[in-house]
């Protein structure tokens, strides 16, 4: 169990985290989503005992990250956001080094890392600094796993990795999870939110929501339409200009459009727009909101309330 209780952290004037509370169950794969600068790394650094919270407390498997940091360090695996292994040591030497400082050997825990390590094993005599991005990431994960930690913390493991490798990476994490490990990973890619059992959305230092992907979708209060046209960008502008529109977002090749009211006649609006001839043929169909829509709605909600309170001041 990971208990995060009302954690605050600020760096000078900047409030990196404010009142973050979160519980993560044993054996869960939790994905923390948030744009750059949301405070993901700060939260993770506190989780792995590198940073002390200003207020609040964090407990990992019954151990306090401040009081019991020494015991905790043997039970956690951490993969920092930037590559932090020795570039001048070979793949094998890095792995051996981390295994030996935890008092174990590669052989003892080979079964745990096999699926990951086998991809880089052919290059085990190569200096880690000369590996490609994807291979570096696999090595870093191997090193974080080599002592069979109870909790694995991964700070933006898929940043800077190509789409195929990203997908593969999450599959690897799922497999590791089966070993009974609790995994918490962060990402700035919205589409990776569905990869975990639960996702949390961190925005400007506040945890806006943490739930299963299904529940997060239900948070979305408006009807959702997926629209296509021959000039999506212009259409987006036109839809946004309507007063009846709650939100409209570009979503891949479609526009995710939500009117404020459930019974709003979308067909009428679209045929009207189609008649102008600027957008070609427009098709709209009702769809389920994606996680991204919910997050976008939640973060806008924060900004809305902030501007409102700003105006009343």
């Amino acid at each position, binding site marked *: 169990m990971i208990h995060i209780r009302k954690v605050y952290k600020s760096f000078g004037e900047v409030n990196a985290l404010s009142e973050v509370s979160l519980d993560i169950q044993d054996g869960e794969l939790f994905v923390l989503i948030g744009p750059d600068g949301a405070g993901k790394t700060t939260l993770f650094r506190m989780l*792995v005992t590198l940073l002390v919270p200003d207020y609040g407390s964090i407990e990992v498997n019954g151990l306090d990250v401040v009081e019991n940091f020494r015991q905790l360090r043997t039970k*956690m695996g951490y993969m920092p956001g930037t590559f*932090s292994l020795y570039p001048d*040591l070979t793949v094998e030497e890095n792995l051996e*080094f981390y295994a030996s400082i935890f008092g174990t050997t590669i052989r003892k825990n080979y079964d745990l890392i096999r699926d990951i390590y086998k991809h880089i094993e052919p290059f085990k005599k190569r200096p880690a600094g000369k590996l490609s991005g994807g291979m570096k990431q696999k090595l870093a994960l191997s090193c974080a796993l080599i002592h069979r930690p109870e909790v694995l913390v991964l700070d933006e493991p898929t940043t800077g990795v190509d789409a195929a490798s990203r997908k593969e990476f999450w599959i690897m994490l799922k497999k590791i999870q089966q070993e009974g490990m609790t995994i918490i990973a962060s990402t700035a890619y919205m589409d990776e939110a569905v990869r975990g059992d639960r996702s949390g959305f961190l925005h400007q230092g506040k945890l806006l929501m943490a739930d299963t992907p299904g529940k997060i979708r239900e948070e979305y209060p408006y009807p959702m339409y997926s629209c296509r046209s021959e000039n999506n960008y212009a259409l987006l502008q036109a839809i946004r200009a309507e007063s009846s529109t709650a939100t409209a977002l570009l979503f891949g090749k479609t526009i995710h459009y939500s009117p404020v009211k459930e019974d709003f006649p979308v067909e009428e609006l679209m045929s009207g727009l189609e008649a102008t001839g600027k957008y070609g043929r427009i098709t709209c169909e009702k769809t389920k909101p994606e996680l991204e829509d919910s997050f976008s709605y939640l973060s806008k909600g924060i900004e809305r309330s902030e501007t409102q309170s700003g105006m009343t001041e």
Partner: protein
Amino acid sequence: MRTILIIIRKEFKQIFRNRMMLPIIFIAPIVEMLVLVYAATMEVKHIDLLVVDSDQSVYSRQLISKLAGLKMYHVSVIPVAGREADARLLGNKADAVLEIPPKFEQSLVRGLNPVLQLRLDAVNGMAAGIINGYTRRIVMDFQRKWQMNFTATDTHGKIMRISVVPRYWYNSELNYKHYMLPGILVILVTIMGMFLSAINLVREKEIGTIEQINVTPIRRYHFIPGKLIPFWIIALGELAFGLTIGWILFRVPVRGSLLLLFGFTSVYLLSVMGIGLFLATIARTQQQLMFMFFFFMLTFLLMSGLFTPVESMPAWAQMVNRINPFAYFMRVIRMILLKGSGFRDILPEFTSISVYAVIMFSLAVWRYRKTT
């Protein structure tokens, strides 16, 4: 202990994999010794002397030929004083101008105590002083002999003289190389111990590997010794290597106990490593560390007595030197190598440097805790 050994093994792997490292360890000492020992010498071996001979007498010509006969002097003569002499001095064509005024010999014979003038290029004051000393001695010597010849039949009586015979102890040939070489060894050992170890520590910070290390069970008392011991060994090896080269090339004497020298160096290294570690906790990047090092290295080195004796520095400078570990080592290595001083002779330095090492290390470790 096991953890420390793991770190040490890792460090040695990295050190010897670094392409710059082996040249720094093995080529640098040889080059530094050859270049610095030969070039950084205070001896004056070549003097361009311009003689303005306005006298044109037997006396003046004999004096000139006496000077010209010496290997060290390159004498040129012009007959009249004036602009040319100054121009040569100004143009670095002459180091000194010796002016023999008209009717010098005549005045001398008449017993009028005439005066010779020696003008020196004193941009390098030390060299000017030495040239003055040499030239003066030669002229006096010549004068005495000339006078003895001249007054052989004279009845003015004997000139009473006291002669002082110098015996140069510990360095009987006044071999400047033997004085310089231990100084160079100090620099080499210090760079290895203080600079390389600190830069290695900052590197972990700069490339972020410290982040990964900090979440492992490695503790401060594993990490710091694990990082420093390899460089401590390398620095002691460097001293042995440097001494061997010094002995082969210059026959630098080893009069005292080598064990004592290495014992002192071991403690000395701890004190400079303490400084290095302290600076490493302040610097975030290797570049920042370099700038701090330039400052400390230059100040400490120039004050340490590498070129100029500490005893002739002003009182405040000597006070400052109490916190200059280089100065202790500079003095002790010369004492042991050249004079054969024993443990009892270097006991004050040994005590000071031990206290220094303890203080510096505690300070550095304390700061290290605060920053990580």
